[in-house]
């Protein structure tokens, strides 16, 4: 283990470390803590210039309910779910298939196709902006959550395929071979042998894609204009424009918008990190 375990260090260093930890964390999360504090601050505090002192009272519920009552944020959040959940299902399902195909079958353009997915994954999405917007308009999905879902599924499939393919490559191939010898059909192999083994990968991917899509802002501004389809990220920025200087409300809104991915992260932490670091440790 590196660095040397702190248990071997002198007691002074050890307790020093334990004191340092919370201090470091506090500094690291300072912007977040500030916002969280502001979100429960009564409006009067801000007017009186009490920005960082102890809040004169706890106005958390007022601020939060004000955000929900005076703005369509609840609606935005619903939109975000409408975009995120179908995308996760679509992209993960598709990439299970493509990943399986690319990992198991040997065909001529296999590697080429794979790299196409990889490259697509890293492309600056700005280059897609004009044509994708045009396409969405032509299909009549502009300004709908459907338009966002379609695009996100397509785009995320690139990353998911890369992920799934590497994962399936790591499975024992002999399993598939022996099933083939037994005369099991390819579809059955996929369903009954590979799919159950893929469960951890599916979990990891779902959490990741959920976070990515939830946090997307660029496409939400490009493909959506009106309120009725706007996800919470874009909506929040619109609110920020309306509530100039109403920082207690903006803060409360920010916290609300950040909550679902954060909750997801804490619930599925193991999978989340496994997903992010797959490929970072091997190869």
């Amino acid at each position, binding site marked *: 283990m590196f660095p040397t375990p702190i248990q071997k260090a002198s007691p002074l260093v050890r307790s020093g470390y334990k004191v340092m930890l919370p201090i470091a964390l506090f500094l690291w999360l300072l912007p*977040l803590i*500030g916002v969280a504090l502001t979100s429960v601050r009564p409006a009067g505090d801000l007017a009186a*210039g009490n920005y960082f002192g102890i809040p004169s009272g706890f106005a958390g519920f007022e601020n939060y309910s004000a955000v929900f009552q005076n703005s369509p944020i609840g609606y935005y959040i619903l939109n975000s779910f409408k975009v995120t959940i179908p995308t996760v299902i679509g992209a993960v399902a598709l990439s299970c298939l493509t990943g399986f195909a690319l990992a198991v079958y040997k065909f001529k353009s296999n590697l080429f196709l794979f790299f196409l997915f990889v490259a697509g994954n890293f492309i*600056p999405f700005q280059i*897609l902006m004009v044509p994708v917007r045009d396409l969405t308009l032509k299909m009549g999905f502009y300004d709908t959550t459907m338009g966002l879902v379609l695009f996100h599924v*397509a785009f995320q*499939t690139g990353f998911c395929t890369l992920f799934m393919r590497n994962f399936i490559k790591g499975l024992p191939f002999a399993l598939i071979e022996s099933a083939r010898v037994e005369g099991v059909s390819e579809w059955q192999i996929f369903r009954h042998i590979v799919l159950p083994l893929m469960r951890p990968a599916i979990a990891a991917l779902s959490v990741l894609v959920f976070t990515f899509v939830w946090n997307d802002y660029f496409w939400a501004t490009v493909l959506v204009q009106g309120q009725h389809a706007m996800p919470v990220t874009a909506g929040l920025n619109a609110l920020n424009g309306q509530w100039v200087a109403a920082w207690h409300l903006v803060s409360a809104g920010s916290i609300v918008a*950040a909550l679902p991915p954060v909750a997801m992260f804490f619930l599925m932490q193991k999978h989340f990190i496994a997903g992010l670091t797959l490929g970072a440790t091997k190869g």
Partner: protein
Amino acid sequence: MFLIYVLVPIFQSIWISFHDWDGLGAKEWIGLQNYVELMDDDTFYVSLHNNVLWLVLYLLSIPAGLAVALFLNQTVTGIRLYKSLFFFPFVISQVVVGLMFTWFYAPNFGLFSQSIEWLTGTQVAVLADERYVTYAIIVAGLWPQTAYCMILYLTGLNNINTEQVEAARMDGAKGFKLLWYIILPQLAPATFIAMVVTVIGSLRSFDLVSIMTAGGPYGSSQVLSYFMYEQALSEYGFRMGYGAAIAVVLFLIMMVFISLFIVRMLSQERNA
């Protein structure tokens, strides 16, 4: 689907970049004129310059992430919670991060400007100052990116070959030397992923610029991705062709890095 939404549009974009088009009417072929205009556009150079700044400074998140990872790579009670809390910024939307930092930097009451005032006696409104604005945004961007690199390194540190480390310790290697000669080579895969992700993230930077300053003041915090958005899809007009031309430039820059990445993956596949 991937084909329709990702691959074809790349070529369409390149095609559109040779036209004068408002997104509705007929496209007019103007050849390289968009690019010629771009060469004369000051904002283009500002954006390019800022993109380079982003690229270079953003890479700081890699050593920073490593440092945090080394700091946290201990086993004391509650360390798991610490690790996840340190990772927090990455999970939050860039929009929220942008808002947080705008508030953090806000003149008069922002925590940052207050501490500056306390230190130097003068106030600096970083987001309204041409000299500092890009740096200020990059710092906001570094925050989640460092968290990401940290997680990559923490996982890497977990998989380190302990025998090798012990052997090196036996030989008297310690501290920085041990880190440099024994640990870092073993962390190479993590470093590589961190590099790729950071470079791409820095070139894609859009959300923060859009939220925090919208490219201002006077376009001084522009980056290519926001510049193209502004040209193609905002009140400045619908100059799709011009926007596409900017995107193509960005794409070409990115292509250099993507090819490097693919070449490396290809050699790995061959070895596997």
